[in-house]
C-alpha cells in the first residue's frame, strides 16, 4: 500500500502562513514543516475524503503552518520542507509563488472548499485581488446545495446588509445525524470574500419539533451570524453557508437584503436578545463592527478663517418648528454666518420655515447647507464647526465659543455631566472618563475638518453623536481636546428626530451605539 505523502499544492497566503494541500493514506499524518532549524507543526489541519482517490476514507488534507511561531522560520532565505515521518517534500519558491492560483484553478473540489472553509473559520485570511476574484468565481460556479436533503435541513430566515457593510443573518440548521462539525459561512461582495461570525445552535427553536422524526432536532437549532465587510458594498452581497462534509458543493447561497443601518441594528438587537449566552450575543454584535477604532483625525488643519461661516451640525431633537428658536439663540451667540447641516432624513415644511424664520431675525445669514442623517464629509470645510443636539444648545443658551485657539486643544467639548456639579464630581479626569462611560449629551466645537473626519467613511454607529464622541474621546486622550462640564441642572432632553427612536421597546439608537462603542473599546 502506498503510504507516501503526496503534495499537490503549497503556497504562501502572507509572509508567515504557508498552506499545503495533498493526500496520504496514512490516518495519522504527523505533518511537520521544516524551515531551517525550525520544525513547525500545522496550526490548523483538515482531513477529507476525495472522490478522485475513489475512497470514502479521508485521505486528503490541507494544513496551515505559521512560520511566525518559531524564531527565524520566516527568513526568506531558509528552504522549506514538508515532512511526514521520513518522507520529505521540498516546498520550492516557484511553487510557493504559483500554486495558489493553480489550486484555485485545478485543485479538486474537496481541497478547494476545504481551503474556503479555512477562510470562513479565520484560519487563513481572505485572499486579495486578483486571486479573490478567481476564488469567488469558482465558488459561484460550483454546484449548490438545496435547502433540504435527507442529510440535513437548513433555512435562512433573515439576511440583511447595511450600507456600511454590516450584516446580520439568522436561520436554523438540523442535520440528520448530530455532528461536532458545524456550519460555516462567508459573504461575497464586490467579488471579495469576507468571513462571517457564525454561531450554530445558539438560539432555542422549539418550533422545529416537527422535524424531529427525520433529523437530529435538538431544540436549539437556530444559528445566527454577523459580519462587517472591509469596504461598503457596491454590488449585491451573497451569503454562502457551507455545510459539514459537503465539500463538492459551494453550499447554500442566499442574496442578502439591503437594509438601512437602523434596520440592520434592529435585526441584530432582536437576534442578540434571542441568544441566551450573553458572551455570544456580544460577539455577534461585535461582528458587525469595524475591527478597531477609527484612526485619529489628521490634526494638521489649514489656518482657520476667523470670521467665516460656522458649520452647525445639528441633531434637532425638538419639534420641527422649535428649530427657529434654537437657531436664533446660536446665531445670537456666534455672531457669524451659520451654515446649517440638519441631521434629518428630510426637510419638512416646518423645518424649512423655521430656518427661514431664524434667518429673518438673525444678524448674520443662516443658510441651510445640507439635510441628511449623516454629516458631510470633511472636504471643502475649512472653517469652524459645532455639533450638538438642539436640546443641548437650547439648554446652553447657544453659549459655546467658536474662536479657534492659537495653541490650545483642537476640540472643545461641553458635556452635560450631572455629576460634575456634585462635591466630588468635578475632577477633569473623571469628567473625561464619564464622557465615554456615562455618555452624557454634549456639544463639541472645533475645526470642521477635524469634526467631520469620522464621516469621511461609514461609521460604526447609528448616530453621528456616537461617532463624534469616539473621536472626541480619542482626542481627549491625546490632549488634542478639552472637556468642560457644562451645567446639567435643569437639562431636558428632546425626544424627537430620527436618533431618539427606539430600535425595539426600551432600546434606543443611542443605547445601541453605546453598546457598540463599549464593544469596540473592549476589543481595543
Amino acid at each position: 500500500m502506498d503510504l507516501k505523502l503526496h503534495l499537490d499544492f503549497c503556497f504562501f497566503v502572507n509572509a508567515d502562513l504557508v498552506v499545503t494541500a495533498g493526500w496520504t493514506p496514512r490516518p495519522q499524518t504527523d505533518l511537520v514543516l521544516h524551515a531551517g532549524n525550525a520544525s513547525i507543526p500545522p496550526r490548523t489541519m483538515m482531513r477529507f475524503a476525495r472522490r478522485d482517490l475513489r475512497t470514502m476514507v479521508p485521505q486528503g488534507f490541507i494544513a496551515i503552518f505559521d512560520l511566525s511561531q518559531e524564531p527565524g522560520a520566516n527568513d526568506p532565505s531558509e528552504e522549506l520542507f514538508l515532512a511526514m515521518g521520513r518522507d520529505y517534500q521540498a516546498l520550492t519558491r516557484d511553487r510557493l509563488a504559483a500554486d495558489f492560483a493553480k489550486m484555485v484553478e485545478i485543485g479538486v473540489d474537496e481541497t478547494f472548499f476545504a481551503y474556503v472553509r479555512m477562510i470562513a473559520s479565520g484560519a487563513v485570511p481572505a485572499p486579495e485581488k486578483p486571486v479573490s476574484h478567481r476564488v469567488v468565481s469558482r465558488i459561484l460556479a460550483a454546484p449548490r446545495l438545496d435547502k433540504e436533503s435527507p442529510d440535513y435541513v437548513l433555512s435562512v430566515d433573515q439576511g440583511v446588509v447595511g450600507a456600511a457593510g454590516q450584516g446580520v443573518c439568522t436561520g436554523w440548521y438540523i442535520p440528520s445525524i448530530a455532528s461536532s462539525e458545524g456550519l460555516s459561512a462567508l459573504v461575497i461582495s464586490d467579488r471579495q470574500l469576507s468571513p462571517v461570525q457564525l454561531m450554530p445552535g445558539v438560539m432555542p427553536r422549539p418550533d422545529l419539533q416537527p422535524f424531529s422524526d427525520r433529523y437530529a432536532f435538538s431544540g436549539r437549532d437556530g444559528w445566527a451570524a454577523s459580519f462587517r465587510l472591509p469596504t461598503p458594498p457596491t454590488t449585491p452581497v451573497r451569503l454562502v453557508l457551507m455545510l459539514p462534509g459537503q465539500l463538492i458543493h459551494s453550499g447554500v447561497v442566499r442574496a442578502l437584503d439591503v437594509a438601512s443601518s437602523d434596520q440592520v441594528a434592529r435585526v441584530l438587537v432582536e437576534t442578540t436578545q434571542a441568544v441566551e449566552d450573553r458572551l455570544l450575543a456580544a460577539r455577534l454584535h461585535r461582528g458587525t463592527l469595524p475591527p478597531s477604532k477609527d484612526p485619529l483625525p489628521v490634526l494638521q488643519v489649514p489656518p482657520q478663517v476667523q470670521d467665516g461661516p460656522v458649520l452647525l451640525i445639528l441633531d434637532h431633537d425638538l419639534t420641527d418648528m422649535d428649530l427657529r428658536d434654537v437657531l436664533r439663540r446660536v446665531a445670537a451667540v456666534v455672531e457669524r454666518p451659520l451654515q446649517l447641516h440638519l441631521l434629518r432624513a428630510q426637510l419638512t415644511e416646518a423645518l424649512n420655515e423655521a430656518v427661514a424664520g431664524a434667518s429673518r431675525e438673525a444678524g448674520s445669514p443662516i443658510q441651510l447647507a445640507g439635510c441628511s442623517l449623516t454629516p458631510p464629509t470633511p472636504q471643502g470645510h475649512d472653517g469652524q464647526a459645532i455639533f450638538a443636539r438642539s436640546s443641548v444648545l437650547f439648554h446652553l443658551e447657544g453659549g459655546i465659543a467658536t474662536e479657534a485657539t492659537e495653541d490650545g486643544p483642537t476640540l472643545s467639548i461641553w458635556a452635560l455631566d450631572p455629576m460634575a456639579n456634585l462635591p466630588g464630581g468635578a475632577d477633569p479626569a473623571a469628567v473625561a472618563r464619564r464622557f465615554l462611560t456615562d455618555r452624557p449629551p454634549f456639544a463639541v466645537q472645533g475645526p470642521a475638518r477635524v469634526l467631520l473626519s469620522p464621516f469621511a467613511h461609514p461609521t460604526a454607529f447609528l448616530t453621528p453623536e456616537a461617532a463624534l464622541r469616539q473621536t472626541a474621546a480619542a482626542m481627549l486622550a491625546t490632549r488634542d481636546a478639552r472637556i468642560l462640564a457644562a451645567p446639567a441642572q435643569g437639562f431636558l432632553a428632546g425626544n424627537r428626530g430620527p436618533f431618539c427612536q427606539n430600535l425595539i421597546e426600551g432600546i434606543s439608537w443611542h443605547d445601541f451605539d453605546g453598546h457598540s462603542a463599549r464593544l469596540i473599546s473592549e476589543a481595543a
Partner: protein
Amino acid sequence: MTRIVIVSHSHPALRYGGGEVAAYRQFQHLLAQGHDVYFVGSTIGPEDGARFFGPGQRILGFSDRDFCMRGMGMDSFSMEHPRLEDEDWTLDFLTALRGDVYHFHHFWNIGAGTIRRLRGLLPDARMICTLHELTAICANHGQMVKTSGELCHAASDVACAACMNRAPVDFALRRARMSEMLDLFDVLLSPSRFLANRFEAWGVSEGRIAVIENGLDHQAPPALLDNDTLVTRSRRFAFFGQATPTKGLDVLVRAAMLIDKRMGDLSAPIALDVYGVTAEGFAALWPQLKAPDWMRFRGRYRPQDCVSIMQGFGWIIIPSVWWENSPVVIQEARAAGTPMIASDIGGMAEKTADWGIQFRAGDPDALADAMQRVHDRPDILAQHSALIKEPLNLEGFDREWRVACGISA
C-alpha cells in the same frame, strides 16, 4: 398726535370674547375722543377665513381704521405662525400702520415671531400687552386647568409634560419663548390681580404688570329698589355665558337638581334663567343631566342688552370651574347693580370679594346651599346690592391706561 394701534387675536364683529371686546371698546372710545387709533383683529383659523374672505384676500376693512386680518391658523402651543409668509404679512401690515403705540390684547394669531420682529423694526415704539388669560403659562387653552379636570396651581416643565403628554423640553422651550416675548413689551397689563400674581409666580418680575380693570361704559346706577321688587328678585337667579365645560353650567344644573329635591324646604317659588345657552346646546354637552322645570334656557342675547336683562334678577351666578381672569359678566352685573354668587377661585373671587357670595368651585352642594341661603331674602339682596361699586368706565380706563403706559393724553 400719538398713533395707537390696538391689536387683538380676534375681532368682535366675528367672535364675541372678553379680550377682543375689551380691546374693541378701547378702540371705539379712543376713536370717539378723536385720537389717531387703529384696530387690527383677526379671524381665528382657516375655517373662518374661508367663510369671510375671498381668494387671495388677507384683510377685511370695516372702516379705514378698523381691520380684520385673515387668520391662517396658529397652534396655541407654539404661538408662532406655521408659515413664515403669514408672519411676514402680519409684520408688514402692522409696520405699515406706523404706530407710535402698539397695544396687543393677546398674541395668538399674531405670533411671537411677529412681535419679536416688530420690536426689532420699531425699537422706539411703545409696545403694550394686556394679558387676558394664562396662555403664556399654560398650553391647555391658557386656563391652568389640567387635562384631568383639576385646577392647576403652578406650571412646571415636568408637570406640564405629564398633563399634556409631551416632552418636558417642549415646555421649557415654550416658556423661554413666551418669557422672551413678554420681555419685549414696555408695559404689561392685567385686568386682575389674580392673573398678575400668577405671572409673577411664573417668573415675570414683581411690579412689572400693572393691574387695570377692563373699561365698560354704563348708565348711572339703578335707583334703590322697593321691598316688593327686592322680594321678587331675591327669588330669581340667572346665568350668563356659554356652554363650554369650564364655565361650570353643569355645576349649576346639578345644584338646581339638588334644590329641586328639597323644594319643600323653600319658602317661595324659585326661578333660574340661563342666557347664552339653549336647552338643546346644553343637552348635547350633558345629556345625562335633567334640568328642573323652573330652570329655563333662554338662548342667545344681544350683548348690549345684557345689563338691562340682569337688572330683572336678584342674583347672577358665575359657577366657572376654571380660574377666570376678569369676566365681562362680573362688570356687567356691577353695572346692573345685581350681586353675584361666584366660584371662590381666581378672578371671580377677587372681583366679587366685597359684594358677592362665594361658594366652593365645582361643588353643586355648596352652590345649592348658597342659593338657598339668599333665596327669598330681600334683606340679604339689599345688603349686597348696596355694596356694589360701579365698574370702571372707559374714560376711567383710559386715564389709568395712560398713567400705566406713560402715554400722554
